């Protein structure tokens, strides 16, 4: 493991960890000098004059591309095409007055068709879930807004799929494309979503078109990765069989590679759908109507119950689409005997058509089946508001939250923030480099230094540190709470399943709903910010802990049992060490989620990058928006790179797959 230092003197051979320690000590010395008041101020914070006007340069560049190269003419042309597609689905689903002017399709027809498709994919339970979701949406009075969201989703998801698939194939065919695409993908996956939104608005016009574009871009990366992965895994025997039967290159791809990589590609489809749904809600910030916009409006007028109901609809839609697409992954193509009649081979199609036509006709005669007004809805929003307020007014609740708020804010969070801010910039970068070097090695360490150096040069250092502080605090607390939950749940099958279901739900619940209860409990303070991130960051931690522990080879645990280890000994000496690499992946995801959520937490009131990003959204300040986004991305990438490298090394050492 020891890496030779590049020092020319052969006598001194420092191990990686020693170098890391030396760097950390240098950082400590710098910090103490700062405390003693002996550090020159330019070492504490970069002087304004040293900061290059990145935002200005980027603005100039964007304007050049936009106006002088005429990109905007091209994108506005694309906008028109996209607008046509969106108008068509909008007409069909909620009756926007556009071609083909035949919508809206009655809600009952859609619900019935979905139920039939659900039955085909996963039996009665799936049928109930799919049909039930749409019936709930209609009964609760959210049909139109849900369809506004769906009308964008069913355009964006297929487009993200096609673009992702094509890029994935290209990356698999040519190493050069792969090399170019990979770093771009990493950045895209860590870039805060506010950074996608502004360019989308500028180039693709405010409204559904910009929403669709932002959604597509957000959903493409996993599709590319899964496609490439699937194609690379195709076994040579299959390829040879294809070659022997004299396939052309196109036939090879169409009939050999893609069918063989079916599972991975469909997992990619599942990811695309989930990301699209997550993003399509967030695009409410740039004027995309639908569930997200309604949710924002409800939160803006302090209607907790109604916001919660919209959240439930979103979760139900997400779970339905997720389960259906996963069922599709597992379902193998059916084969029929020669001579099976047409209607039997296409039973689902026949049934679905029958249900669709049947309910459409029914809706023609009974209006209840075509439209349910808000007045007939079953919404219990007001009652929920009353209940929530009553709960908050309970003395016990108030006492507990006041104590938590006091202890966390006054004793933990604010001092920690002030401490991080007191570290000189240069020393901070050294700490990060030392951390990266100790865990992952020289290459990640150098990149970490470059990344944080760039953040320092961006001129947004203090805000970046505050962002990082929220992330670190939240992830640490998520560890303290999430690990025990994960370890306990991993003990039994039943609890594992339950906890994983809770994780799924927490993850698909639109993140900004957490903000209001957090504020009501803990006020507009750092505690609220950390708590709302915490819920989100705990999900991957718990999930990967459960999966890591349950993935420990049974031979190992049996060996521990035979040598008479107690439960605790087995956990500490056998299971945890073996599960650690998987848990590290969860830890890494937790950090990524925290970086995502900290930006949304700007809605509570923070002094971090998210607050500034939110501010740029209201203007046309694309350069600044981009600089801020990149700052977040660079910090997230540093952690991502370091932890993933560490986990991979560790796995190899342990001989795990």
């Amino acid at each position, binding site marked *: 493991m020891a890496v030779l230092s590049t020092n020319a003197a052969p006598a001194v051979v420092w191990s990686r960890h020693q170098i890391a320690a030396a760097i950390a000590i240098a950082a400590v010395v710098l910090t103490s000098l700062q405390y003693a008041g002996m550090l020159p101020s330019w070492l504490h914070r970069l002087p304004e004059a040293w900061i290059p006007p990145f935002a200005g340069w980027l603005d100039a560049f964007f304007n050049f591309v936009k106006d002088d190269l005429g990109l905007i003419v091209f994108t506005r042309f694309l906008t028109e095409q996209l607008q046509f597609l969106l108008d068509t689905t909008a007409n069909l689903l909620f009756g926007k007055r556009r071609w083909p002017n035949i919508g809206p399709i009655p809600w009952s027809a859609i619900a019935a068709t979905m139920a039939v498709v659900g039955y085909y994919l996963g039996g009665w339970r799936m049928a109930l879930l799919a049909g039930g979701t749409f019936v709930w949406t209609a009964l609760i009075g959210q049909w139109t807004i849900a369809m506004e969201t769906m009308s964008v989703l069913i355009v964006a998801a297929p487009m993200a799929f096609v673009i992702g698939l094509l890029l994935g194939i290209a990356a698999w065919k040519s190493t050069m494309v792969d090399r170019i695409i990979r770093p771009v993908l990493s950045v895209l996956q860590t870039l805060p979503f506010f950074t996608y939104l502004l360019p989308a608005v500028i180039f693709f016009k*405010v409204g559904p078109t910009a929403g669709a574009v932002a959604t597509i871009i957000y959903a493409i990366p996993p599709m590319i990765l899964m496609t490439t992965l699937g194609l690379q895994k195709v076994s040579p025997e299959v390829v040879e069989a294809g070659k022997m039967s004299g396939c052309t290159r196109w036939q090879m791809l169409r009939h050999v590679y893609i069918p063989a990589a079916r599972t991975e590609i469909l997992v990619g489809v599942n990811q695309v759908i989930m990301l699209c749904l997550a993003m399509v809600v967030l695009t409410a910030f740039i*004027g995309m109507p639908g569930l997200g916009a309604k949710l924002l409006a409800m939160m803006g007028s302090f209607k907790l119950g109604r916001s919660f109901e919209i959240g439930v609809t979103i979760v139900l839609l997400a779970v339905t689409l997720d389960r259906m697409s996963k069922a599709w992954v597992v379902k193998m193509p059916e084969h029929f005997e020669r001579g099976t009649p047409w209607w039997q081979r296409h039973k689902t199609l026949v049934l679905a058509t029958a249900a669709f036509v049947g309910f459409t006709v029914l809706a023609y005669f009974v209006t209840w089946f075509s439209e349910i007004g808000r007045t007939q809805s079953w919404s219990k929003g007001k009652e929920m508001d009353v209940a929530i307020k009553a709960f908050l007014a309970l003395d016990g609740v108030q006492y507990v939250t006041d104590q938590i708020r006091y202890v966390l804010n006054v004793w933990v969070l604010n001092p920690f923030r002030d401490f991080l801010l007191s570290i000189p910039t240069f020393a901070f970068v050294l700490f990060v480099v030392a951390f990266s070097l100790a865990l992952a090695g020289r290459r990640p360490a150098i990149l970490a230094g470059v990344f944080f150096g760039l953040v320092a040069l961006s001129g947004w250092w203090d805000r970046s540190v505050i962002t990082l502080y929220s992330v670190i605090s939240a992830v640490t607390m998520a560890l303290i709470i999430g690990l025990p939950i994960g370890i306990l749940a991993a003990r039994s099958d039943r609890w594992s399943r339950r906890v994983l279901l809770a994780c799924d739900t927490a993850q698909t619940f639109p993140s900004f709903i957490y903000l209001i209860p957090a504020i009501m409990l803990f006020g*507009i303070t750092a505690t609220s910010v950390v708590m709302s991130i915490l819920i989100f960051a705990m999900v991957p931690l718990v999930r990967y802990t459960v999966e890591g522990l349950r993935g420990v080879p049974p031979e190992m645990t049996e060996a521990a049992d035979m040598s008479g280890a107690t439960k605790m000994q087995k956990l500490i000496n056998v299971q945890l060490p073996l599960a650690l690499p998987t848990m590290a992946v969860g830890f890494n995801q937790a950090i990524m989620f925290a970086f995502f959520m900290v930006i949304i937490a700007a809605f509570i009131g923070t002094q971090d990058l998210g607050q500034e990003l939110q501010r740029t959204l209201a203007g046309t300040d694309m350069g600044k928006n981009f600089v801020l986004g990149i700052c977040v991305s660079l910090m997230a990438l540093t952690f991502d790179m370091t932890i993933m490298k560490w986990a991979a090394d560790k796995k190899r050492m342990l001989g795990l797959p």
Partner: protein
Amino acid sequence: MKMMTTALTAGVLAITPFAVLAEDSSDPIVIPIHNWSSQIVMSNVVGQILEEQGNAVEYVTTDSQAVYESVRLGDVTMELEVWEGAFGASFRAAMEKGGIVDVGDHDAVTREDWWYPMWTKEACPGLPSWEALNDCAAIFATPETGDKGRYLDGPVDWLKHGQERVEALGMDFVVVNAGSAAALWAEIGAAEADKTPIVVFNWTPNFAEAVWPGEFVEFPAWVDGCDKDPAVGPNPDALYDCGNPADGYLKKAAWEGMEAKWPSAYALLEKVNFTNPQIAEMARLVDVDELEPDEAAAEWLDANRDVWEAWIN
């Protein structure tokens, strides 16, 4: 597709009996919708009147600051609520760049300033004077602010200068910025539970008046130049030592090309004029009665026929 819609709309236009001098274009008039209810209902009210006149109308949800750029470019046709305090700067910036026109003011006035819900007055009877507020600063203290009071200001990007005012008037308050309007409501809602005294940034017309009755804090009255000339106002060395104007304008704005493209709709827009009680009523229909915005607009139009029918002729 375009031909088809044109043909269709032309057909609709042909059978709608109305008399105008110049024909309005059959392209839809795009009305922006923002994230507060009075604006949404008002947009629906005007939209429904326009539809009744035979215009095609479309609503698009946009950011309330970015909308002026969209109006300028013609992506959006009009804006019905330009608040002096909140959007005056964005509006003026767009005016300078060109492409947007001022279509006159509503009778309604707007005000935005430090505000407290009524229960606060029980703990601090001297209100609404700002000196009295400062004397009871301690009752507004939170664990994080020590013995100073906490004033909850609007989001940083609303540029309300709460911090500057606290310094200019030497007040014992710490300014905390909420991240969104929703965060402000959540704090008031939480304070309501046990009637904790609270002082926050608020504005009128607003739905909050209907939910939580309250008053504005009376600061030294606004004098022109208070934000530019330190000599103006009680503190000779500081800016922002006055309250905000108590009667800010509420304007209508439109895209420059609107008058030529939809002349009769533009003529109507010039006449559109709402008062504070009318706007509060619109907000109430949605925020308290829980109607959908379009239903609320229809209801309002029904109840106030005399108001808007005068604008048509």
